[in-house]
Structure formats: C-alpha cells, structure tokens
C-alpha cells in the first residue's frame, strides 16, 4: 500500500457515514444517496493525489458529492422546485392538524425546499460547516450562503405552519419563558 496516502484513505473511509448523512439529507432518497456516496467515494479514491494536504478532507468530499448530485440533477432534469408554493400549501395543513411536528414532517418539508437552500441549510445547520466553508463547498459567495440559509429557515417555518413553539414538539416550557420574557419587557 502507498504508505503516504494510507492515513488519508483511512480518514476518507471514516468519513463515509457523515458523507452519507449529507447525501440522504440533500437528495431525500436513501437509494439515490447511497449511489451518490459510492460515486463520490470512487472519484475521491482515484483522485486522492489532487487533494491538497492541510485542507479540509471532509469539505473536499462534500464538494465532490454535491457537484455529482447537481450535475446529475441537471442531466436528468427531474429536480422539482416548488416555485408556486403548491407543495408548501399542502404540507402546511398536516402538522397543524396533528398539533405536533415529527421528524417525518420535517424531512418532507426539507425536501420541498429549493435544492440550493436545502444544501446551504444542511451544510451550516446540520453538518457544522462555517458559512465560509459552506460557501467554498457550494462554490458561491459567503453572503449567498447566508441568504440561502435564512430563506430556508423562513420557508421551513412557513411550510410547517407553525404558530407556536409547542407545535414543534413537547416544548411547552419554551413558550412559558417567551411569555414571561415579553411580559417583563412591557412598560
């Protein structure tokens, strides 16, 4: 085995669960995500010499995966963007009826977001990248990432039809704190 690249290859394999979580969150389809991870892994393995030592291996892998994903989307032209808000309107009813938001509702809402916003939110909000790192992975400006994250958060809140934090789960204490905080600020 090439002793120089061995630690790197081991690190790469160790990052697969994390990479897979990104893929599933990004495309919302486990089978497709696993194919993406496989393709990313093969590409990374074959081009490991192009990885710059000292830079972020995880960011490099995420970049390969998202580029593969978006290229595939363009090629297949099957990515559905909910520009008219139809899906969002349908979805808004569901959590309200149950009065409680579960993980399934959340994942469905995440999948309705435009892909670029979903990607930015996952990178920053779930994968723990800084805005700067997320911008480098996505190949755009830091301001663009910030804007996408904000829009994604607003849309999620809007889509899930949430009026109070209680509907996000068993968190009645939060509202009590909010009520007290607001009350204490009133003149």
């Amino acid at each position, binding site marked *: *085995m*090439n002793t120089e690249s*061995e630690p790197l*290859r081991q690190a790469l*394999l160790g990052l*697969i*669960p*994390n990479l*897979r*979580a*990104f893929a*599933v*969150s990004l495309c919302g389809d486990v089978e497709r995500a*696993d194919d993406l*991870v*496989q393709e990313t*892994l*093969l590409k990374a*393995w074959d081009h490991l010499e192009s990885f710059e030592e000292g830079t972020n291996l995880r960011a490099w892998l995420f970049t390969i995966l998202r580029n593969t994903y978006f290229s595939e989307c363009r090629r297949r032209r099957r990515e559905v963007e909910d520009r008219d808000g139809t899906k969002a309107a349908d979805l808004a009813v569901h959590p309200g009826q149950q009065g409680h*938001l579960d*993980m399934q509702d*959340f*994942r469905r809402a*995440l999948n309705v977001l435009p892909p670029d916003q979903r990607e930015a*939110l*996952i990178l920053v*909000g*779930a*994968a723990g990248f800084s805005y700067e790192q997320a911008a480098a992975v996505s190949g755009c400006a830091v301001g663009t990432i910030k804007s996408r994250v904000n829009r994604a*958060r607003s849309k*999620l*809140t809007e889509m899930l039809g*949430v009026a*109070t*934090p209680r509907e*996000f*789960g068993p*968190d009645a204490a*939060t*509202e009590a704190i*909010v009520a007290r*905080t*607001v009350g204490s*600020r*009133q*003149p």
Partner: protein
Amino acid sequence: MTGKDGSAPPAVLETRTATRDEKDAKAPRSRPLRGKPQTVNEDDGDKRKVDTYQQTPRRANARGAILDRSLQARIGEILRESFKDIEREPLPEHLVELMEALKTKESGR
C-alpha cells in the same frame, strides 16, 4: 345565537362595538412621522415623556421575534437530530463491500 359547538357566544359579541368613526376619534389616525417622544403636561403639573408609537404592534413584534428565534433554534435541533440519525445508521452492504474492495485494491498495488 349560539357558537359552533352549541355554547353561548362570547359576551363580547353581544355588546355594541364602536364604529370606525368613534375609534378614529379616540385613537390617533396615524403615528407621527418622526419617532421623537412627545412631552405632555399631566393634570398634576408633572411632565413626562410619552412614546407616541403604538404600543400593541410593538409588543406583538417583540413577541413574534422571540418566538421566531425559538422556532429557528428548534429547526436547528431537528435538523441536527435528523442528520445524526442517518449517520448512526449501519452502512448498506454494497458500500461496505466497496470499502473492502478499495482497501484490497490499494494493498495489492
């Protein structure tokens, strides 16, 4: 008159509501263009500053902003939980096989 569930309607519906003109006579038609507090004379001769901005919308905005921050935090939590759940899942067979194959391929070089 009864409510949807057959109960008596709220008492507020039985009282006559103020007409628009009456409301307008009580409340300022619009808030001042500039936000400087106006100084008013009270009956006891004491002077105090009164914020002429309408209080209710401001309270609603403050409450909305705090709720919004709370919701954003909750969204973040669920997002991270969801991500970690996937990360903890066992890898599918074909990925494990691929990893093994890559290791073998590398060791054969």
